[in-house]
């Protein structure tokens, strides 16, 4: 029996900012009491995997019940402040190789960074766990890890990273991984056509640099492009078109100021530095993203859905090429910090709420 709790039965009518159309949907609680759920993946057999930032990987069975025992064999995770277990993503060839990827903070308070591991799920245990990437250098504190990843058509993967907050200038240093995105093969080796692979002074994994804290990444198959978003400081959250070798400017240029109110840079643009497709000032704190391609909500098809922490909503973004056409806040009536948003195989939308007693919510239409 499906153990799903009806959360809000009444259809929610929203006056869309895009026009007169009204959206109707229902909300179910799929799982609750998850400690800062961070990422969700749909298994082919109907089960789901969900990470908890506290370091646990959980299974939601096909009948909707949350398996009590966490998945065993998860790599050792450094948990503190923003640090913990982040993304879970299935290998593009999961059906044949059964492998998945986990990103997480690794190390100690004094020396840590973002790690990426590959593993196989057998029953309720990870086996053949292999750390395939560890961002360098190790830094102190528990801030800004990035953690989202996406696969390119050649099945290489791009992982978003962070600047550790205290090393923002290092985002401009191609010799390390701070404040960048990296591209690697699924076994952790470096593709021969990476943009900096022939540069002796650059980290060969580097894909882009000048990024602050990348927590949204989607490959847009229809338009053959990689779209990401990253947290700004106080203002300056960005959606970017990620292209190999590009420098996105942080902290040389930014539309935000520091949390203290101090100027980070007097410049918002400069030659050789990429401009975002759009920026959010004040910040919404974007933390996850899906490109909606389902049929359940045809009016949202082709939109980027961005989960937002500070703004407590999902922001629907419509792009025409690299031009912003429209934006619309969704699900604000839930009043939840949204960590992640996913499109389910049936076209419904799953939301992860950022809370010590976080929930997995399903947005659907009968």
């Amino acid at each position, binding site marked *: 029996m499906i153990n799903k709790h009806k959360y809000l039965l009444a259809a929610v009518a929203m006056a869309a900012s895009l026009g007169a159309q009204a959206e109707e949907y229902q909300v179910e609680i799929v799982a609750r009491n998850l400690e800062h759920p961070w990422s969700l993946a749909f298994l082919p057999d109907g089960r789901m995997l969900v990470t908890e930032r506290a370091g646990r990987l959980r299974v939601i069975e096909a009948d909707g019940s949350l398996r009590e025992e966490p998945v065993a064999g998860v790599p050792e995770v450094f948990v503190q402040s923003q640090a913990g277990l982040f993304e879970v993503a299935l290998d593009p060839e999961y059906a044949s190789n059964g492998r998945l990827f986990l990103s997480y903070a690794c190390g100690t308070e004094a020396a840590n960074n973002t790690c990426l591991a590959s593993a196989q799920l057998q029953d309720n245990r990870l086996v053949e766990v292999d750390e395939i990437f560890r961002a360098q250098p190790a830094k102190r504190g528990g801030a800004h890890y990035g953690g989202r990843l996406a696969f390119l058509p050649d099945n290489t993967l791009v992982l978003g990273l962070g600047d550790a907050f205290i090393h923002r200038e290092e985002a401009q240093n191609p010799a390390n991984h701070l404040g960048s995105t990296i591209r690697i093969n699924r076994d952790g080796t470096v593709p021969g056509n990476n943009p900096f692979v022939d540069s002796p002074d650059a980290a060969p994994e580097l894909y882009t640099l000048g990024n602050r804290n990348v927590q949204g990444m989607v490959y847009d198959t229809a338009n053959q492009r990689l779209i990401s978003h990253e947290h700004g400081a106080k203002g300056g959250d960005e959606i970017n078109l990620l292209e190999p070798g590009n420098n996105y400017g942080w902290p040389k240029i930014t539309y935000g100021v520091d949390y203290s*109110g*101090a*100027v980070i840079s007097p410049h918002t643009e400069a030659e050789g530095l990429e401009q975002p497709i759009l920026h959010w000032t004040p910040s919404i704190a974007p933390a996850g993203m899906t490109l909606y391609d389902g049929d359940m909500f045809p009016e949202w098809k082709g939109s980027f859905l961005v989960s937002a922490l500070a703004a407590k909503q999902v922001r629907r973004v419509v792009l025409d090429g690299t031009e912003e056409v429209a934006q619309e806040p969704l699900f604000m009536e839930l009043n939840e910090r949204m960590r992640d948003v996913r499109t389910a195989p049936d076209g419904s939308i799953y939301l992860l709420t950022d809370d010590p007693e976080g929930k997995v919510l399903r947005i659907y239409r009968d």
Partner: protein
Amino acid sequence: MSLISVLRVILFFVLAVVVAVVLATLVQTQFNLYELQKLGVEILPADRIDSNLKDLVNFTPLMAIIVLATFICALPVAEGVARILKPWRLVVYFLAGAVGLWVAFQAVNWYAPPPVFIAANRELPGTLSMMAAVGVGSALFGRLVRPRTRRGLRVLG
């Protein structure tokens, strides 16, 4: 203590806070711009003036809270020590403000999610410079409220 004396101390306290906040704010701006210059970013005089002015508007509220908390704790201690080490009054006040600010920074960094909340404090030169700026404000207060020196013939007995 008369009302006039109390108002005088309050006025000097406010003046010392303003001096400390403004100096510390301007100091941290220069360190942040210097970090950009090290990355090759051109900072024109107009950029510097603009950044200074923006920080004087947007950064000073936080700095004022930190300095107020620092002075409320540190200045009474400084006055007590200065009465013992009379010739070192200004030094005592300067150190009280500077060290008090350092303690305040530790408290802010402990409480705030980022490891270091104020960017200029990530390196020792920035931290020491801001401590000195607040020390100047503290020393100014010590100078303004110093006990009056008695002049003239003092008759013993």
